Every structure is written in structure tokens, then in C-alpha cells.
């Protein structure tokens, strides 16, 4: 780590109705959390394909957070159940690939601004402890 503290780069998927709104609420409530998170809006967490998660890691992210509505609250009824199942299977694959600590699924409701700040802080620190991933460099070099 040549330039001092390692600043993780975290990509976050957030669903329009719950988690994006919850993250907005953290903003309106002026709750501070680390700058390292970059939010991508989707209509439903069910839109998130595991391919996107892997692409984030390969393209330089040190960690990926998938967020969505709590089970039972999905605006589109069952999108988050699919997200959950895909995440469990993806996590099992990531475990085999030695990457399971780098991806996390969290349910954030529209009223959970505080919780978002905690989740973001927690995950950023978790990734900071793991260190930079540098996935593409590691897996392309000879």
C-alpha cells in the first residue's frame, strides 16, 4: 500500500422502491458514512444478475453489496426471493473461488436510513481489512 490507507471501492446495487429510498433517507437525515460506496439503481433487486456482480469484481471493485426489500415487501411481489436464492448459490460458488467475503446481500427498507449507514460502514471496514482485490491483475499475470 504505497500511498497510505487503502480505500476500498464498493459497488452497490439498490432497488428503487426500498433500498435506494433508504439510502436517500440516510441522505435527507444527513447521516454520515464512508464515501467508498457507489450506488447503481435498478427497479428491483431481482434485476441483478450474478454476472453483473462478477463483472464489478473483475473490473476493479474490491467489494459488492446487493441491497433490496425485506422478504415479503417486494414492490414486485417476489423479486427479492430470486435475489436471495441467486445470492446463496453465488456465494457458494464464490466460496469455491476464494471470494465469498467480497460480496454481501443486505435487506434495506425505505425507512432504514440509519441501517444503511451502518451496513455501508461495516462493509467498507470489512473490505478494508481484507485488502485490495486486484482480481484482474492477479488472475492475468503469469
Amino acid at each position, binding site marked *: *500500500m504505497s500511498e497510505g490507507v487503502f480505500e476500498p471501492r464498493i459497488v452497490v446495487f439498490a432497488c428503487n422502491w426500498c433500498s435506494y429510498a433508504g439510502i436517500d433517507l440516510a441522505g435527507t437525515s444527513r447521516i454520515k458514512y464512508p464515501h467508498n460506496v457507489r450506488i447503481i439503481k435498478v427497479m428491483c433487486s431481482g434485476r441483478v*444478475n*450474478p*454476472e453483473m*456482480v*462478477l*463483472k464489478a*469484481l*473483475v473490473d476493479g471493485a474490491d467489494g459488492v453489496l446487493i441491497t433490496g426489500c425485506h*422478504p415479503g415487501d417486494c414492490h414486485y411481489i*417476489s423479486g427479492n*426471493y*430470486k435475489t*436471495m*436464492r*441467486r445470492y*446463496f*448459490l*453465488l456465494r*457458494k*460458488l464464490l466460496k*469455491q*473461488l*476464494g*471470494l465469498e467475503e467480497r460480496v454481501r446481500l443486505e435487506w434495506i427498507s425505505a425507512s432504514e436510513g440509519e441501517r444503511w449507514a451502518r451496513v455501508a460502514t461495516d462493509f467498507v471496514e470489512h473490505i478494508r481489512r*481484507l*485488502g*485490495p*482485490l*486486484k*482480481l484482474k*491483475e*492477479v*488472475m*492475468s*499475470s*503469469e
Partner: protein
Amino acid sequence: MSDKVKVALYWCASCGGCEEAFVDLAEDLIRLTEKVEIVFWPVAIDMKKSDVEALPDGSIDISFINGGIRLSEHEEMVKLLRRKSKVVVAFGSCSHLGGVPGLANMYSRDEILKYIYLEAPTVVNPEGVIPKEVVRVDGQEVELPKVLRLARALDQVIDVDYYIPGCAPPPDVIKRALDTLLSGQLPPKGSVLGAGSRSLCDECELNKTKPEKISLKDLKRVYQVRLDLSKCYLAQGVLCLGPVTRGGCGTLCIKGGMPCTGCFGPLDNVKDYGARALSYLASILDYDDELQAEKVIEEYIVDPAGWFYRYSLPKSLVRGRYQGSGGEVRG
């Protein structure tokens, strides 16, 4: 002789099946030799590397290279063939996607060598000898090719013009690909030849027997169930990778009572075969309860990497088990 197309065939980390696939062309192989002159085919013709080196650059019209890239020797030979060829075709799953040898990327090179030469239950190696790249024998230095850190597909080492998919490519596919290549009307660079542009379900006769909604309560291994060969295997709870796999093979495995294992690889728009496969499989499991879903996935899907990346691990986004540790890269 001079207006025959000059062709080379080479094998890297290969099982030999792709060579056999050519032979499976049967009578078509004989007709082929009327149009084609084979200038290099180690398995069948006694030619040396130096013969290839002696050829002018670009004088081979088409090189068909099969097998994955695992040794420095493979890397050297394919780079040589690239220089000497106008068109390079990655032939078969191993050169197209990395193939089954690609699954070696789940382990580090050291782990593999140690296991094979020291730790495997049937190994007797009291002196703990592991092959080295250079060894002195009878006063002389003997070299072995270096094992590369990761197994690779062909286009991760050289520029590849076309791909012929399959493990091994079926004769029909090879024939169609050869017709295209020898026709003079070459498709866009990077195309997959001889195969379809849609997934296997498009040509599978069992597709129309699918119920309107598939919702699986459990997954069965092929040996655990008596498949009804007239109904979609996925709907019966067996993991068939037909939906995510490029078609064009004529559903040979399906017709043989086996679900598709994905040897033709992904379709053009797909960036990671395994990720797409796991996405649809997880989506159709019938469990909304978190604990139950987790339990079912733990119990029924024992080896996601092996199931979803059987042929394509080196070409997947992650390429294998992450071999960094806190940023440190081992050579």
C-alpha cells in the same frame, strides 16, 4: 498441389478427442483431402517444430488448434502457428473456453504438483521427487516445459479468428464450419462456426413439453432418477444446461438420455456462462423462506464451480480460484 488449402492441426492440453472428431468425418475426411493439404498434424504425420519454423510466415491458410494452454510448450507452439498462419481456429471446448483441463484453475500450480507427486493416496514417492524445469542427468541439462500458473483458452494467449465449439465438436458441426471456411465468404472475425446462435432449447424436441411454470423443489443427479425421455429434463428436476448453452449440436446428449453439460459454451451476449447458469437455476427453485432456500442449495448443489464451469472456467470472468492474498501475487 498449390491451389489446395494448406491446413495445420495441433493439440495442446488435449485428450485426443478433437483429433478423433476429425477422423469421425469418415468419408467426408477423404473428400476434404481433395481440397486441403495437411502440412502439420503431429498425431498423424511425423513433422517437427523445426519444419514449421521453416515455413514462411502466413503460409499456412488455416490452423486448427485444440486443447487448453497449460505448458510453456503449448504457448510457444501456438504463438509459432499464429505467425505462420493466415487464419487460426480454436477447435473444441478446450481451446475455445479452456475446457475440462481449465478446472485445474481451482487449485494453485503448487497444490496440483504436490498432490500428484506427493499426496495422492496411490503415490509412492519416498524421495519426494517433483518434476522440475531443468534437471542434470548424466552430466547434461534436460529441460521440461514449464507449467503455466493458470490454464488458459487459446484466445487468452494468441489472437484467434474463429471458434468451433464442442467437446468434441460433432461431425455435422465440423462439416458446416469447414464448408464456411473453405467457401471464401468468411464471417466476421470472432464468430463461432458450425453452431447455432440461440440456446439448445431452440432445437430441443423436449422444449415444448415444458409445463407453463417450472418450480423445482429439489434437484436430482442423473443417477438418482429414472428420466422420462419424452419430457424436458430440467422440468423433471435434473440440471440441464440447455437453456444457457449454444445450440447446433443436434441435442445429441439429450437424445442419449443425458442432460446438457454445456460443452458448446455461452451465447454471444453472455459474459460469464456460469453466472448466467446459476442465475436461472436459482430463480426457478421453489423456496421463498431464507433458511429453507439456503438449506436446499447447500444440500443439492454440491459443486457449483464444477457444474457451471465444467468447460469454461478459464474464460469465465474470475478465471479460477482467486490466487491473490492481500494483493500479493505469486509467480
